[in-house]
């Protein structure tokens, strides 16, 4: 029972982990990307479109291509969204909050529009896109997982994207804290004028980190459709997971390694109502609020403790002008 709950929690948490890792990388460059929910939708629908067209074009799926095509489509789609965000906020210095919110609305719209219309391309009676064949490949487990009892359930029972999420978070954490690139990136987010004076290309760092961050976040959307939802696209099915991943960024105080544990905790809070017997709908909704409550608590605690390391990057949300006389 406990093993199943943990398993469900990890699966719930994975999209959040992708989203928050991507957002942390972006925020470390000083950009608050509120477009993450929209980017995750676009990532998902791009992957779905790629998989759908590939499934339609051939009767026999090549397992490698079945994974590779949606993956690449997802990365390109979400990176393109990141690029739009960068162009507006870095190059044109538009307001980051407004740009991000616009991208979210735009991205969700794109997702729902193509999610609803792709199905019209083929003559079927099914009401929504179902990519069960591709999904099965995405969900392939390590062969010996089911022979290991609860241990296998907790650690080895997931599709490969779950492990990718954790590895990406760990790599991000390492890069941010232990490498020169990470040092430079953090300096850009903390004090772009200092970075500029030290000869760091501020614009380049902002673009690269935001685009890579968007691509990572997009994978969260892909994981949700292909793995968690068994390849079934339903409009608005992704729900508020995008916002939850932004909340997770704050919860994990801008540390990707902490956000691995945070994502599992958020996932746990998300699934726990299903395992409480005789729960009413209203209580269930109260439970769904918990991640946000926890995030607010973290915000309150870090603000009270006022430790500099636990604060957002100092120039988060501010456009950078090189001062000229």
């Amino acid at each position, binding site marked *: 029972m406990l093993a199943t709950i943990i398993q469900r929690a990890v699966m719930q948490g994975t999209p959040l982990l992708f989203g928050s890792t991507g957002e942390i990388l972006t925020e470390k460059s000083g950009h608050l990307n509120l477009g993450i929910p929209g980017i995750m939708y676009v990532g998902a629908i791009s992957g779905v479109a790629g998989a759908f067209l590939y499934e339609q074009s051939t009767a026999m799926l090549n397992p490698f291509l079945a994974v590779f095509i949606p993956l690449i489509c997802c990365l390109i789609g979400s990176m393109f969204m990141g690029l739009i965000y960068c162009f507006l906020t870095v190059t044109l210095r538009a307001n980051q909050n407004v740009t991000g919110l616009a991208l979210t609305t735009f991205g969700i719209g794109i997702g729902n529009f193509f999610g609803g219309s792709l199905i019209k391309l083929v003559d079927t009676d099914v009401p929504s896109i179902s990519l069960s064949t591709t999904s099965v490949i995405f969900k392939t487990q390590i062969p010996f997982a089911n022979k290991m009892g609860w241990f296998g359930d907790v650690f080895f029972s997931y599709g490969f994207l779950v492990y990718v999420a954790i590895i990406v978070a760990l790599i991000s954490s390492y890069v941010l804290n232990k490498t020169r690139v990470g040092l430079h990136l953090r300096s850009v987010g903390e004090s772009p004028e200092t970075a500029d004076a030290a000869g760091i290309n501020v614009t380049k760092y902002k673009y690269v980190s935001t685009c890579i961050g968007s691509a990572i976040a997009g994978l969260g959307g892909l994981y949700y459709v292909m793995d968690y939802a068994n390849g079934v696209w339903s409009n608005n099915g992704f729900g508020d997971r995008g916002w939850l991943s932004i909340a997770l960024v704050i919860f994990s105080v801008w540390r990707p390694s902490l956000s691995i544990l945070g994502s599992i905790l958020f996932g746990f809070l998300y699934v726990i109502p299903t395992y409480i017997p005789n729960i009413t709908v209203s209580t269930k909704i109260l439970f769904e609020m918990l991640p946000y409550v926890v995030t607010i608590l973290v915000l309150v605690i870090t603000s009270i403790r006022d430790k500099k*390391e636990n604060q957002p990057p100092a120039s988060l949300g501010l456009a950078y002008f090189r001062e000229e006389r």
Partner: protein
Amino acid sequence: MKSNVALELKNITKTFGSVVANKNVSIQVKKGEILSILGENGSGKTTLMNMVSGIYYPDSGEMFIDGDPVTIASPKDAFNYKIGMIHQHFKLVDVFSAAENIILGLEDKNGFNMTEYVKKIKEITDLYGFDLDPYKKIYEMSVSEKQTVEIIKVLFRGADILILDEPTAVLTPQETVKLFAVLRKMRESGKAIIIITHKLHEVLSLSDSVAVLRKGEYIGTVKTAETNESQLTEMMVGKKISLNIERSEPQNSEDRLVVNKINCINREGVKVLDDVSFTARSGEILGIAGIAGSGQRELLEAIAGLQYLNDGEVLYNNPKTKTTENLRDKTPIQIRQLGVRLAFVPEDRLGMGLVGNMDIVDNMMLRSYKKGKSAFLQRKSPKSLAEEIIDRLEVVTPSTSTPVRRLSGGNVQKILVGREIASSPTVLMAAYPVRGLDINSSYTIYNLLNEQKQKGVAVIFVGEDLDVLLELCDRIMVIGGGRVTGIVDGRTATKEEIGLLMTKTADEQKQDKGGAVENE
């Protein structure tokens, strides 16, 4: 042929628009030498050094490093020629450690090894006698430690020519002594050092030669050993120029404002006002002279009730009720109602007092919005006030509904000063009201101040131009480092006298008293 001269500038000229920041400046600094660049505010010291460090590009003139002609077009070039500049405002990332800040931006083929870097930093600190913990975070550091990080930053990059922009401005006397010891060690190891300063005693105790700039012009270079304070002061402030500003005799003067031993410590813990006492009389213009940032702003804000005072009192003799009131216990609004007006013209003209996006009428209402009785705005009287100011002060504007930020600087200042005068004050404080104005506008402002003086207002005028202060003011108070270094009569004082008082800082006074002047 390698020469002993590390850096030489020949006939450097730089203009910003129509303002000449540097005109035919020629200086040179040898290896193992400390050169001071001395000058008042706005004399072009920092501009000159910014050209050496690649931030600006000179309009004409030549630069030589080790005797070879060079072009420095960017900070990167300067770095390649081993020139390192330590700015007055530190460029450091707060949440990083000292070591992280020092290596920031460096490209290193040998990978990223923090322990290795820390070892190298330790070598530098040991060599020159710095006191620094490489793992300490910047936000936990004092100003002097931050400066140390900045200096090590340029040394770490292998700089041979170091330029320090007013390095002692933010330091305590003890820290200054420490810094000078370090600089002397660097001189011994053959580095060429340039310090920009306006403190005479530092120049005399530290440097080998002094180059003097005045209003962008290069006056000359002298050997420190062959000069003295009064010669340097004369080079720095120049001869008096007559401006023909009219000055009437004060009439019926009485003490309006008595400031008694006020002390103020700012948020960084620096004492910005130190036992300041003076009296402002009605029908008189009291000038305040001093190097920028010596406490002028805090002093005026203290009187207006905007600055928290640690100690002392500000007594106001109310001419209407003939009573004496202590302004320290009052809120800024109460102080304003007594007739004390502050027309502060800060570095950015719109920063204090006016809202750029609002039009002239709305800005007039900023001072009178409390008078309204109904819930709706009454724009009639502020509108006529705006029209009156535009008319009287010859403000150039398309209409009263033009946003203030679209006006030129001079017109903005006229509106600000005009609005404060319109409320018939008893005390009028104006800080740098003519900064950036052309001659005609400046005279309009002088006339306004004179007019107020004749009406019996106690005028306090903070100015930069000593010639103006000497012709406009009845008395001139000089402050240096938050202390009053002297109050002189505007009619008899000389420029040199004021110049000397200005460059006298608090720590020097203490040293004078103690008799132990740290000198080599």
